[in-house]
């Protein structure tokens, strides 16, 4: 069940989160997302997301290193990520609060 919940992960958000600590190229993004967030992004998904985020000015391409082009999060992208993180934090707090009303439902 835990693994199936990975399907709910939002790829644009994962890519923005991956770029939040510095520029990365495609392969580095997939590695980072897999290692830190446990979600494997396919090349098709990743570049569909990169194209959308770039079109919305949430990320920007940097000078290509050979054929690998790094991307950097923009100020608008960082703001969008921060807003989403706040929303997620409030939802998470709600989850925790509701689960706390049912002690014994979740095994420690």
């Amino acid at each position, binding site marked *: 069940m835990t693994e199936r919940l990975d399907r709910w992960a939002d790829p644009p958000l994962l890519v923005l989160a991956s770029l939040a600590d510095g520029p990365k*190229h*495609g*392969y580095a993004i*997939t590695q980072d997302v897999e290692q830190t967030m446990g979600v494997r992004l*396919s*090349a*098709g*998904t*990743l*570049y*569909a997301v*990169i*194209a*959308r985020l*770039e*079109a919305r000015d949430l990320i920007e391409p940097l000078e*290509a290193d*050979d*054929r*690998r*082009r790094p991307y950097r999060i923009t100020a608008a992208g960082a703001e969008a990520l921060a807003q989403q993180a706040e929303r997620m934090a409030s939802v998470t707090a709600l989850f925790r609060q509701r689960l706390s009303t049912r002690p014994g439902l979740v095994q420690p």
Partner: protein
Amino acid sequence: MSRDTDVRDADGLPLPRLPLARLALGLYPPAWRDRYRDEVLALLEESGGGTRAAASLAWHAVPAWISPPRNLYADRTARMRACLATVLLAWSVLAGLSLVFAQLTQLQGAVPPILTYAAPSVTLVRLTTLTLTPYTAIVTWSYHVFDAALIVSALAIGAGGLPLWLIMLRRAHREHRRRDLARLLMPLLVPTAYLLALVITVSLIRAAQGCRVAHDPPLVGACQPNGVGPWWFLVFVLAGFAAAITAALGPARALRSMKPRGPAVRFAARAAALGVGSMLVAALASGTAAISLYQFARYTDSLRPWVDMQSFQQYGSTATLVVYLGLVVAAAAVAAVSASRAAGAARPDSG
């Protein structure tokens, strides 16, 4: 941009050639490929590009066509040109499907009101007439709407694209762009060649059958004075689609290489919206007629043990109906999205 060269890693070892991924990348719009192809290949060379990666790439090519990222088209004229190329291809497929529909229904005299039948009782005759009449009315009206919409669509696409086509033709001639000249002439040359080949092949088939007299009822294995056999028909249909797509690909490629600008592009984009809109009406009418004929055929077939009537069995095939409607819906969706994007980019306030 590096292409299909023998790529090696830092240690000089050859990297995988990724044939499936390259094939899947070929499905993307040219602007998308120009921008991301090398990056995707570099990623797959490091992470491995198996069947799954290629399938994922192929799947994501669909939204890349339907809703291409705006940043890939620097200005709205480039957007219009890209959308016009897609509209041309999708419209050609829809026109081909419409011709197949017309050939298989209207031109075969499949108008249900001509139906005659005899039943053992007057009540059964009345009941049959009452049940079949709505179908015949729907099919007849659908044919009228289909004909009118198809004519409007062909006129809009032809008249809307003509000024742009003439401007590009003159420029290709003036600048000695022989390849573009050939591409622009393809909508004339390819259908002409196809029709010539069709007429010659049909004549040869009928001559080989060695019979010029119609038999009633037709003899098994005898010539068919009004047409060819089903396999030949399938060959002609497939060749017709290949010809339609090839004819549309010519101007589509010329649009990409010549990059025309100006009011003729905007005019063509607006006409494309009208042409596709009319084609969608024609597609809807043909779909309605096809479904009604299908139900009519199934119903009459179920009555035939009791009522002596003409068979419409050929319209009762579920597989044929599903394939036809599936192709129409897919081509109509692509044409509608591209035409609306082209018209949107042609608006004066468009960014």
